[in-house]
């Protein structure tokens, strides 16, 4: 009997946990999008640290990497991986500048539509300024701490890469706190942002190649 109660309790708590994520009504979604858009417009720069987990179903462990992210409105962005290796990419002036442990190269985004889409996606997801984008079908949810935007790509290039992109926002600041890029297979990349500071000046040298 005790066991039965215990099971019921555990089952119920799980159901409750599941139920905690509720879909926003049309008016709530509208006001959420306005708040994010306002916050994105006010964010001239964003600096934070990130940890990235690549989940592949058949692996025993997720692959973890981490580093610093610098964003300057409207679309200059630098991902600087420091662990487990030194690797940085800067999206700037329609180009992708790569510094692979000192080895430098660049890719012209104008001639590479996959990278261009990826760049737009990343710049917009860091600032959250993608929720009204016609390239995605969006649904919005909330739980105790977060607003959650689930975006399905309509664009065929993005669709091949990602089944769904899930952005989480801290409910009080309307800033992106994590991005989950889910591939058609179900494998995903989860990027968590921490130590976020907004509108802190970024030295030009950070974006120099």
């Amino acid at each position, binding site marked *: 009997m005790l066991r039965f109660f215990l099971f019921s309790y555990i089952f119920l708590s799980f159901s409750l946990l599941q139920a905690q994520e509720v879909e926003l009504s049309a008016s709530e979604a509208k006001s959420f999008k306005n708040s994010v858009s306002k916050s994105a417009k006010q964010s001239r720069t964003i600096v934070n640290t990130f940890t990235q987990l690549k989940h592949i179903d058949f692996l*025993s*462990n997720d*692959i973890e990497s981490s580093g610093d992210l610098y964003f300057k409105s409207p679309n200059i962005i630098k991902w600087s991986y420091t662990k487990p290796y030194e690797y940085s990419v800067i999206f700037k002036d329609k180009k992708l500048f790569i510094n*692979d442990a000192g080895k430098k190269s660049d890719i012209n985004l104008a001639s590479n539509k996959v990278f261009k889409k990826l760049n737009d996606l990343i710049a917009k997801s860091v600032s959250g300024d993608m929720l009204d984008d016609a390239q995605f079908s969006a649904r919005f949810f909330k739980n105790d701490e977060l607003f959650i935007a689930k975006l399905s790509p309509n664009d065929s290039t993005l669709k*091949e890469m990602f089944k769904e992109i899930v952005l989480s926002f801290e409910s009080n600041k309307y800033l992106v706190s994590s991005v989950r890029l889910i591939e058609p297979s179900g494998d995903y990349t989860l990027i968590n942002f921490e130590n976020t500071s907004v509108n802190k000046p970024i030295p030009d040298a950070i974006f120099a190649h």
Partner: protein
Amino acid sequence: MRYLLISIFCVSIFSCKVATVENFIETEVKSDDVVHNPYFSNAAIDYVYKSDISVYGNEFSGILILKRIAPQRHRIVFTSQFGSTFFDIEIGNESYKIHSIVEQLNRKIILNTLIKDFSLLIKENGKVAERYHNDAYNVLKNENDKYSNYYFYNIFDQKLDKIVNATKRKEKVIILFNEISEDQVAENIRIDHKNIRLNIELNFLKK
């Protein structure tokens, strides 16, 4: 006349022999000889490498993930640093399956090269056709279709240092295994092609 015939015979024999085992001494294959590559054989290990690829002067890098998912069967995934998948291939002894591949890499010549290289890299066991040695190495030759694979085992510690893939006359691919860890992980691997300008360097990512 006899001398001439012998000369021709000798020359033709030596010219057939690939440079790989030149100056090595051939000995009889032992009954328990087996070609073994231990470096991707532990199903409990996620083999995750930073991968630098140089192809005809273009360099790019990513993360190469190898996992033994069943006996003689591996899953091999190559992703960008951001995590987006370039390809996801499953290779078994006689067959392969493509789970996904980006449009840019989905060409027959690229795919064939990838499958051939990775099959060579991960093949765990094989029969021995010939055996050679010198002061530094025991070499076991494994035959595979029209190709021969020469496995170089260091005499000092019996570790597999090198695999050479060759036709009867020419070396095609050389794989070097360096920095072998205690749990049999090759922490640095080089795959060099002799007939095309394609080189791959793999460095194991430690936790």
